[in-house]
């Protein structure tokens, strides 16, 4: 015979009173089927069957007090002497013993880096009715709160001039890169009118080679500079970023190892890069890691001569070239604008750098 005895109910309780029997002798019970309810000094506890089987006998009537270890149920079955089955958890309601779970908690919460928009519910409703996106409105109220005036003003602007458009993709990343540059870099731009010995058939490639030559002679402009730690890394290769204008925005694919490649090889490489940019097939790796940049804005418009191109950290220099023009004796002049980061590069170095470019071109 197999007996089920009143298990330890925990909480220091040693006895319980039978409240209700859910089963009787002869019943078939399944594992976990509730067999009876007992009331302890503190709680009503439903007691499940620890096994399946047929009940031979139940012990005790409603109202009887049973003590821990006294039999409640006898199951039909083989004669295996007097054994106890089941091991009820001490917890009254638990179906199974709890497993150790990992307890994760921290003091305080992470503060969002995105500035929260403050709009009162009524103003939010107004914005909804007027079709204004509150994310596009600058709040002028207390602590930057968006007021109903702000929403009405935005709605009037939208009505007159159409809705504003959020920058996305490369245009958005250009905005971020330019702001970062403006916050960090101390730029100085030098302008130079360089006479050309002859007009090259691919201006970009010719100037690229001239830059590589200048970098070898004046390495201070071909570096990666860490403005926080104030350290620079002089580089012995020239990976030239080429500014490419597209409808979507500005891309700067990188022409690698310019110092050791032939003009023909560079020309082919440049054409491949431009093609990849225009067809939007350029892998992100081809857009990073430049050591210096060349922007040939002169190729876009014959009247553009000078600019103040923006240095993009960690680089320290960018070369801009304008449209070639002729002076009175027919001499061809290439206008060059070189911006350098004066935190890391001296005016002398930059001036000599232009000198080396000029030396190559004339």
């Amino acid at each position: 015979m197999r007996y089920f005895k009143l298990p330890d109910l925990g909480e220091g309780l040693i006895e319980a009173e039978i409240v209700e029997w859910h089963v009787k002798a002869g019943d078939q019970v399944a594992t976990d089927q509730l067999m009876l309810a007992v009331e302890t000094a503190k709680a009503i506890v439903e007691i499940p069957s620890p096994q399946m089987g047929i009940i031979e006998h139940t012990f005790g009537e409603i109202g009887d007090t049973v003590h821990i270890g006294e039999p409640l149920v006898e199951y039909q079955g083989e004669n295996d002497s007097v054994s106890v089955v089941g091991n009820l958890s001490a917890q009254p309601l638990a179906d199974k013993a709890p497993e150790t779970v990992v307890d994760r908690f921290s003091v305080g919460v992470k503060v969002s880096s995105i500035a929260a928009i403050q709009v009162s519910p009524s103003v939010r409703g107004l914005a909804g009715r007027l079709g204004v996106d509150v994310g596009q409105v600058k709040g002028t109220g207390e602590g930057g709160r968006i007021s109903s005036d702000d929403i009405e003003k935005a709605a009037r602007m939208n009505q007159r001039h159409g809705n504003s458009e959020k920058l996305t993709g490369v245009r958005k990343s250009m905005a971020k890169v330019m702001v970062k540059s403006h916050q960090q870099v101390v730029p100085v731009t030098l302008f130079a009118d360089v006479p050309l010995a002859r007009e090259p058939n691919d201006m970009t490639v010719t100037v690229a080679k001239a830059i590589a030559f200048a970098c070898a002679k004046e390495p201070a402009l071909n570096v990666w500079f860490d403005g926080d730690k104030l350290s620079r890394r002089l580089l012995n290769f020239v990976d030239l970023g080429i500014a490419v204008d597209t409808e979507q925005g500005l891309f700067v694919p990188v022409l690698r190892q310019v110092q050791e490649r032939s003009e023909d090889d560079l020309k082919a490489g440049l054409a491949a890069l431009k093609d990849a940019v225009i067809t939007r097939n350029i892998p992100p790796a081809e857009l990073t890691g430049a050591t210096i940049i060349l922007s040939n804005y002169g190729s876009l418009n014959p009247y553009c001569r000078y600019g103040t191109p923006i240095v993009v950290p960690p680089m320290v220099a960018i070369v801009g070239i304008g449209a070639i023009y002729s002076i009175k004796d027919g001499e061809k002049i290439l206008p060059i604008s070189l911006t350098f980061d004066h935190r890391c590069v001296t005016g002398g170095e930059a001036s000599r750098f232009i000198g080396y470019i000029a030396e190559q071109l004339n």
Partner: protein
Amino acid sequence: MNNETLKNVNLVEAINMALNYAMSHDESIVMLGEDIGKNGGVFRATDGLQEKFGFTRIMDTPLAETSIAGAAVGMAVAGLKPIAEIQFMGFIYATLEHIICHAARMRNRTRGRLTCPMVLRAPYGGGIHAPEHHSESTEAIFAHIPGLRVVIPSSPARAYGLLLAAIENPDPVIFLEPKRLYRSEVHEVNDNGQPLPLDRCFTLREGEELTLISWGACIKECLAVVDQMNAEPGSHDRIELIDLASIKPIDFATISDSIKKTGRCVIVHEAAKTCGVGAEIAAYIAEHLMAYCKSPVKRVTGFDTVMPYFRNEQHYLISELDIKAAINTSLNTRF
């Protein structure tokens, strides 16, 4: 036994560990309550302590809660650190005269000359099929009284650290233990005597879209819901779960940081709705954070009725479905 990480520690064992640690390190600590000594407490929270520390430090008292509280106030003012146990929160009302009229205002009344460094421990909340007076969640009564701290842990590790902090605190602390969680979960607890900060809440899960605030036994259902919702396919961490833990004072700085981020808030508590602690949080949000809210604050609470007896308590207690429904309503509503 000290400075040891123990696995499989349940909440009531963590309470016992904290009491044991504190008593071992501070001889001025004494404990008093019904059946806490020889018997070890109805929930075994003080099991083995009288054998270890003797009957002069672990004192069995008559069934007289008024006297327990009064004696504790006297001991605290006279230089001891009493930890009084009230067997169930339903029996705590007899202590209010001493707690409200003396313990809470001793520092103020004596202009700081006397303090009342006592802890009043009591199991609270329903869910264990108990008779009347055994399932109360009336933490708001104490939270309303100036001069009292009210602390409710919701895991073994937090119970350990917060109880040590409550004992160290120089003012009276009402320490309410969610008895439904006493044995429901086991965690690793490091018995290193490290208190957790009082007056702060704990972030259990981080999320971006909704702040779920709860405490005590309801944390169990909240965790289940949040873990399920944050793991839904294609979803990121949406729900931030905050365990209030310190019911008085409330860590509004943390709540503000979270709501400025999420803009939505659901508060879950087992206690009745009217004038519950959830109302205080909702009022704070209305006063200070309304402009950050994208939908109205929602409360999921017990009903404004006497906690029912065991047969009906499942209809009173808050279920995972209740919490999930409130979260979904909040997420799908806009001002």
